[in-house]
């Protein structure tokens, strides 16, 4: 089976966001980057799929040279091959999806894994965009997956429950937390990853469909009042919620 997994290189969750000098992105100084957490579930599921059916897992990332660090992590976890679609410019979701879809098509992917969103721009679009660009089904927010006889049975999260969805492969499976427990790279994996080559390709240029015109911080929330220090304060709290905030 030819398995593709998309990985993105994003500021880690500890990052305190500062707006960059251009006013449309964040200031990268002092920011640590990581493999986007949802993509980690995607990598794990790709590796489990290979364990079951054999084949090859190709991790692919679109971005600048810095993304190689995340590709190395994917290799260290056990991916067979890493491909950087090299474009250091900031692309919108469509631009990223187009590059990834072109790669998946050329590679002949039997199944594609992606995270439900990358935790920087949180757009949650790429998996669905790629599915439609390739004319294959996509299933988003997947928390459970079974594959048999070329059919994927995926459990996806909806408000107030889960639905069980059937799709024929090839398909895009978009991972949500809970799908699996991502493995830690072994020491051997880490050492091997350093020696594996990262293939570089230049994705075709794409006109942006969405343009970011500004980025700003949310209005600072000032600390409110401490109503009290024991259970007796509940009376005053309820009064405030009812009369001042009018939320209960």
């Amino acid at each position: 089976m030819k398995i593709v997994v998309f990985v993105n290189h994003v500021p880690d969750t500890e990052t305190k966001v500062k707006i960059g000098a251009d006013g449309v992105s964040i200031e990268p100084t002092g920011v640590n980057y990581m493999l986007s957490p949802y993509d980690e579930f995607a990598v794990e599921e790709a590796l489990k799929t290979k364990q079951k059916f054999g084949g090859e897992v190709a991790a692919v990332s679109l971005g600048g040279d810095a993304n190689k660090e995340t590709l190395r992590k994917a290799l260290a976890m056990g991916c067979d091959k890493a491909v950087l679609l090299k474009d250091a410019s900031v692309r919108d979701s469509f631009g990223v999806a187009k590059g990834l879809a072109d790669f998946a098509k050329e590679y002949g992917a039997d199944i594609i894994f992606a995270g439900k969103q990358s935790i920087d721009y949180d757009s949650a679009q790429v998996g669905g965009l790629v599915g439609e660009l390739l004319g294959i089904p996509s299933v988003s927010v997947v928390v459970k997956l079974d594959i048999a006889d070329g059919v994927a049975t995926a459990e996806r999260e909806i408000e107030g429950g889960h639905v069980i969805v059937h799709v024929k492969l090839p398909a895009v499976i978009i991972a949500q937390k809970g799908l699996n427990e991502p493995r830690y790279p072994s020491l051997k994996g880490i050492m091997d990853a350093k020696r594996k080559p990262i293939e570089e390709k230049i994705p075709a240029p794409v006109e942006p469909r969405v343009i970011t015109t500004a980025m700003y911080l949310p209005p600072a929330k000032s600390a409110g009042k401490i109503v009290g220090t024991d259970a007796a304060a509940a009376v005053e709290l309820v009064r405030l919620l009812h009369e001042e905030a009018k939320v209960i």
Partner: protein
Amino acid sequence: MKILAFAEQRSSQFKKTAFEVVKAAKTIGDQLNAEVIALVVGDKVQSIAPQLGGYGAAKVITVENEKLEKYSTTAYSKVIAETAKKEGAEILLLPASAMGKDAAPRVAIKLEAGLVSDCTALTVENGTIKAARPVFAGKGFAELIVATKIKMFTLRPNVFSAGKSDGSSAPVESFSVDISDVDMGSYVKDVKHTGGRKDVAEADIIVAGGRGLKSAENFAMIEELADLLDGAIGASRAVVDAGWRSIDEQVGQTGKTVAPSLYIAVGISGAVQHLAGMSSSKYIVAINKDKEAPIFSVADYGIVGDAFEVVPALTAEIKKLMGK
């Protein structure tokens, strides 16, 4: 110009977001001199359609087919795109719900449209729609414009106010879209419902618990308070990772980003990832023993005290207020 507003329904009942999306379409439509057409997709939805007129729809299109009773990514995205083409709609609004977020990217490709996800505000400036949306789970906000002829936006539930219906009903037109086996490339085999409680992403009140509750069993008092307020339960990452609560309740950067009217955080210290996910709530109450806990820095009201004493007292007091 025409705006197509996707009104989500399940089991022939509109979701609250259906009204929010139609009303938001009406608000920008008035500024753009555009007409709002609502779209309802499902099996038996004819009878519920007219009420969307009360929120600003000039017309409602229904696409009914037994194959559409349950949501199918492939079939629904085809129906939405075909309807937009037939109407010549240049703006499409969908909810940023599980359904809307799933369908929108596929519709965007079919229509060669730029898509902005999870918007929290739409404004019109000199005829251009500007969308605002949280990035980095709410640690920042971005303002975006769409460069393509057809423009798509998904709207975060609970943020755009639907207001009250003005009571008018809209004319309903049915439209038929061919649904082949290929269009049913993804189909729902089964639905599993989890409890009767509201989903954390949709609720107007959330009572959330963290590690300070010490055990899964102690969430009973959180459940009691949430049920009393007809709210949802939220959880910090720590308690989800510990297996005390399910993942769908997790609030924060690797969980859900929420903006209810009231968020009550019990025994949650307030890691930066958690704060990102909930600090745009309208009112925040923090109950924590540690007066230095970062959660107090975003709370409107705080009680520095033992959750095991404060929460039952709070529940009792609210019961009194409600006359229960």
